[in-house]
């Protein structure tokens, strides 16, 4: 889960990393007041969960409170990459001597957190790493031992930074590393980290992302930031289909179903599973010229009601002509239960299962029983002798015959 800049700043602040005295505002009038309180040149920054703010006009400078209010009004109305801002951040314009970069991320290969530091801050770190590799310091942390300041010092020293710069930046990177671990962040980044004219360091911008799986145990932090449980920060607004599938899944603890249709708009409804099977089958449909209307995952042996609910939601989607019910070989989910569910969905919507179900390919547990049920309604059953690719191909061929 990604945090807004104003939240990320609060997170670094509570970890003991200095930040400028900023104000988060949702109205132009509030921005005027904060600017007046700061009493000097300010910067107004759009609070959106997307990059490229500067280019899009979401960051502006103001010399007076009136100008700050004007800019705030414009920025509050400006959507960036389809994201409406949640507010603006009003920040004193800092007298910066030099900009640095500091972050801590997971290195999945080494399976440890990795610290990154550069004395070329303010720009994209990947660019710096490519053009000036000697200006990027890296170092891994143990997962079991406490973070000690010397770990941070080594990383910073690798960029050639020394003197009071080194001694003042060291605790900042060490604190960032501790907060990354303590708060279950997948990314903890300060860019730019600024050295001011007086030699002190402040975080001018921060970007934090928390692992979704850790949200339950980070409840206290999330509450402190005023983030509500339903504020999931998806990269886009969930559709009716996605919301309905979620509700059906939550209503019954047996099995797990998921549905997504963001970016899909075809005529073939997919009632598919499990995790890897769904990925494989979606590719197989698309590679053979099919147009999926959605993506789904069935797993963990859902009830008839759940399978039925999922199939109904898929069938109700605009433009869906037929559904393909397909999974990789199942060992936990029962073939007969999914068969009952999808047939029930067809019947309850007044559709002929034999016409509506383009293909049913789920081999595995209780397949004999599943096949019997399907035959009764004239639906052809494919066992494991029909490959996932061929099953997807049959579904595509059937829907193309009809059009």
């Amino acid at each position, binding site marked *: 889960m990604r945090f807004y800049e104003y939240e990320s700043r609060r997170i670094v602040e509570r970890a003991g990393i200095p930040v400028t005295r900023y104000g988060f505002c949702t109205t132009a009038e509030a921005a005027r007041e904060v600017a007046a309180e700061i009493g000097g040149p300010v910067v107004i920054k759009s609070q959106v969960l997307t990059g490229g703010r500067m280019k899009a006009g979401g960051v502006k400078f103001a010399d007076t409170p009136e100008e700050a209010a004007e800019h705030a009004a414009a920025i509050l109305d400006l959507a960036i990459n389809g994201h409406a801002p949640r507010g603006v951040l009003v920040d004193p314009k800092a007298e910066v001597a030099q900009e640095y970069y500091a972050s801590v991320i*997971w290195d999945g*290969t080494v399976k440890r957190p990795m610290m990154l530091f550069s004395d070329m801050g303010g720009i994209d770190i990947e660019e710096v790493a490519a053009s000036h590799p000697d200006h990027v310091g890296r170092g891994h942390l143990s997962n079991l031992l406490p973070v000690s300041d010397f770990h941070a010092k080594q990383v910073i020293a690798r960029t050639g930074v020394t003197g009071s710069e080194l001694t003042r930046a060291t605790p900042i990177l060490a604190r960032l590393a501790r907060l990354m671990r303590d708060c279950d962040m997948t990314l903890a980044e300060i860019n730019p980290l600024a050295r001011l004219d007086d030699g002190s360091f402040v975080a001018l911008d921060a970007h934090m992302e928390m692992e979704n799986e850790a949200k339950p145990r980070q409840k206290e932090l999330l509450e402190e930031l005023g983030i509500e449980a339903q504020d999931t920060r998806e990269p886009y607004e969930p559709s009716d289909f996605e919301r309905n599938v979620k509700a059906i899944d939550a209503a019954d603890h047996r099995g797990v179903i998921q549905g997504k249709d963001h970016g899909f708009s075809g005529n073939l409804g997919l009632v598919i599973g499990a995790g*890897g*099977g769904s*990925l*494989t089958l979606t*590719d197989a449909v698309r590679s053979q010229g099919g147009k999926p209307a959605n993506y789904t995952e069935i797993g963990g042996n859902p009830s008839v009601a759940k399978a039925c609910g999922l199939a109904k939601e898929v069938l109700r989607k605009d433009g869906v002509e037929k559904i393909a019910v397909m999974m*990789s070989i199942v*060992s936990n989910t029962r073939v007969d239960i999914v068969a009952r569910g999808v047939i029930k969905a067809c019947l309850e919507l007044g559709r002929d299962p034999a016409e509506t179900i383009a293909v049913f390919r789920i081999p595995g547990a209780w397949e004999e029983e599943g096949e019997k049920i399907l035959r009764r309604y004239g639906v052809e059953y494919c066992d494991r002798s029909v490959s996932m*690719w061929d099953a997807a191909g049959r579904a595509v061929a059937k829907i193309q015959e009809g059009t």
Partner: protein
Amino acid sequence: MSILLSEEFTFIVQGITGREAVNLTRECLDYGSRVVGGVTPGRKGREVHGVPVFDTVQQVADAVGYVPNGSVVTVPPAFTKDAVFEAIEAGIELIVIVTERIPRRDVAEMVELAGMRGARIIGPNCLGLIVPEVCKMGGIGGPAKDAAKAYAPGAIGVMSRSGGMTTEISSTLTAAGLGQSTAVSIGGDAIIGSTYAELMPLFEADEQTEAIVIYTEPGGRMEAQLAEWVKDNRSRLPIVAFMAGRFMDSEEMKGMSFGHAGTIVEGAEDTATEKIARLEGAGIPVVERIDEIPDAVKEKIGVTA
């Protein structure tokens, strides 16, 4: 031979009284695996399909008179780290973590402790591993009769980030007359105990194994790591890969994860297209269809179809 498991291999189930764990225990016993004990705190004295339940891992070791070789851990995410630490500190050497939705920090801690103690972790978010007709450790393949349909002994090592696809691929190989030496569901999370590259030396040392088949997905650097390993170690084993989730490369799917938590694309190297190029660059063919795998393997090991 095989990797990791053998006929003598003994293991326990931590969280054995949970609904899924009860089924898993039954399946493993039916397949002929030696499940010698179970642990659920506070449930000492019970039995699950004849397997005695204890409060601690140490109690199991005391009761049977030796430290079992492995443990299948299937406890809720908030308690998994403690259970795995307990198993490692009791001296257990192979730990299969079934649990999903464990925060990365916990996984990384478990993996680091395992490394310090010489233990190995498979998973989390996996179905375990199987040596056909010898031992099944975890829910892989399902009930014994279903597992017997899909898996047959042979020369192919299988590694997969998807539990279900481990069985689909093995079944496809079996139907084409290619049995498996060992099939491992390595887990679908961003950080896992044993990656492809980390299991390769074991397959390399196993005389029975003649080729490797892997199932891969977008997200992470595990495939790049394998490609590097293959280049650095003149492996005797040909590898055939299948890449699922190619559709995730399209522009409108950016920032989304599908299927498994680990499919989240966090860097430029994580996409399906990029991974296919890397694998092929290391001489690993990436097929587009599961049903193309057997012929691709036969071509590599010189068996005519």
